[in-house]
């Protein structure tokens, strides 16, 4: 459920960038201070593991379909929230840069949607209390499924909100929600099952590699007021900016102008080119510009 650049307005994308960048900075500080000594290579290799795991599918019993690991939850179980968030962010960054998944402007949204919910909500508030320390039992399976479903539902809803606030897609809010949530219910189930399968395996084979929350505190996320504060601040900022963006999109103004019966061609033009599409000159000029750009490219290539 990667958001794509083409669907995000600069205001929404920028707000989510600021939120995600703030979280990355906060988590980087936490990881640097953490006592886990081999965390640098561990994070890098686990990022590579998640990448690879996404290529391997398993069959969902009784359905005939298949799914794969998403990675956010398993990283939180292995690394704890701050390091897991950094790894997810790095995986998404590499996907944006090398695989054109999402794009740069949407990267902030993607890091927020796929990183914050599993690492800072689903893991500390659902998985930890539900799974407890009994790592072999059915509780692990139940906890993983619930945490994964919750994380993905929140993420999917964020995608809807961000797309909506950006005002680029015409998909009505209700329809979009009804499209996204059930799909991600299924994906969440799969993610939870895959996570539980791997966690129970590691718990048997190498229990010491599962993350122990500092000082064994029973309070989920306890002892991390800084991070919690940062999280709330980021969410608030994202929310406010998105709301602001959604009340002032160019597209919305345009459709109001249209329904109020004013002819767009005759409208005073805040953005000159809105009306240019309606005349022949815009198209002609567009094609011409493209040709010109191509010609310049040829010249540049030739006089290398």
């Amino acid at each position, binding site marked *: 459920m990667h958001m*794509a650049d083409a669907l995000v307005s600069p205001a929404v994308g920028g707000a989510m960038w600021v939120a995600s960048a703030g979280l990355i900075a906060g988590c*980087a500080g936490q990881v640097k201070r953490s006592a886990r000594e081999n965390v640098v290579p561990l994070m890098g290799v686990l990022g590579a593991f998640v990448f690879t795991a996404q290529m391997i599918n398993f069959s969902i019993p009784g359905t005939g379909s*298949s799914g794969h690991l998403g990675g956010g939850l398993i990283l939180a179980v292995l690394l704890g929230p701050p390091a897991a968030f950094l790894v997810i962010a790095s995986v998404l960054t590499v996907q944006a*840069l*090398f695989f054109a998944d999402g794009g740069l402007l949407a990267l902030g949204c993607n890091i927020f949607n796929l990183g914050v919910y599993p690492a800072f909500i689903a893991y500390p508030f659902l998985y930890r209390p539900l799974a407890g320390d009994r790592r072999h039992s059915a509780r692990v399976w139940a906890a993983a499924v619930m945490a994964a479903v919750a994380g993905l539902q929140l993420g999917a809803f964020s995608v809807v909100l961000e797309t909506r606030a950006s005002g680029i897609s015409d998909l009505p809010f209700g329809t979009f929600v009804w499209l996204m949530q059930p799909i991600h219910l299924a994906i969440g189930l799969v993610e939870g099952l895959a996570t539980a399968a791997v966690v129970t395996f590691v718990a048997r084979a190498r229990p010491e590699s599962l993350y122990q929350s500092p000082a064994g505190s029973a309070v989920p996320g306890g002892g991390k007021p800084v991070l919690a504060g940062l999280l709330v601040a980021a969410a608030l900022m994202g929310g406010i900016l998105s709301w602001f963006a959604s009340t002032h999109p160019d597209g919305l103004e*345009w459709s109001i102008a249209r329904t109020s019966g004013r002819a767009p061609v005759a409208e005073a033009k805040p953005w000159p080119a809105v009306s240019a599409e309606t005349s022949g000159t*815009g198209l002609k000029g567009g094609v011409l*510009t493209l040709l010109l750009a191509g010609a310049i490219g040829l010249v540049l290539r030739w006089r290398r």
Partner: protein
Amino acid sequence: MNAGHWLEVDRLEELARLEAPAQRVDARVKAVVTLVFVVCVMSYSRYQVSALMPFFLYPIAMLARGRIPAGYLFRKILMAAPFALAVAVFNPFFDRAPMAALGPVTISGGWLSFASVMLRFLLTVGAALILVACTGMHRLCAGLESLGMPRVFAVQLLFLHRYLFVVAEEGGRMTRSLEMRGARLRALPGRVYGSLLGHLLMRALARADRVYRAMVARGFDGEIRLLRPTSLRGSDWGFLLGWTAFFVAARIWNLADLLGGLLSGGVS
């Protein structure tokens, strides 16, 4: 994703090592220019098509000056297209009001915004790929770090990139051996899957331990020292100011429309 993707990652890095003008531009400058480019392109209203055209000059120039094969880049962009396509394709159904006329054919707002979304997708995703193809992960991370990205994150990106190949190859060997014994890789039974990924994860963890030891053996003290980028040259400043000025100009005036008007005026 299949194994073919991995070679492609390699190919981008390979391009980044070419000795071409675009590759020689400072990484920080290219990162900033790319960001300005993406923000400018995305700040247009949803029905914009013609005004986006001048922005094609940047990717085309970078392809030419970086000796990057356009066909290869285009294929990579297409592979990422489905999500944007899936969401934007609804626009023509929900927005049927006629917006433009090309002779006898009227074009609805939905189709116009669909075209705009796809063009912007092409431009922004293309710009990100071009940034990597003419910079490379290594210089990009060092550059971003000196622009203020936390070092822990820069190092994480580098380590992830380094061990992508190693772990993916391990995963490839394991799945191949399963395949040789008749397993259907599209859908493994749950028990096999858990054990396979569990083993892959154990190997990854053991690898992390060994790498950590190798780092410690050479005096690692928790701090990775990246080579510092050199200071900006005159040509870097030229690149930065030139392109930024062009993007801003193209954003303020619809250059395509002006050109079209000029042409129509000249003909009539």
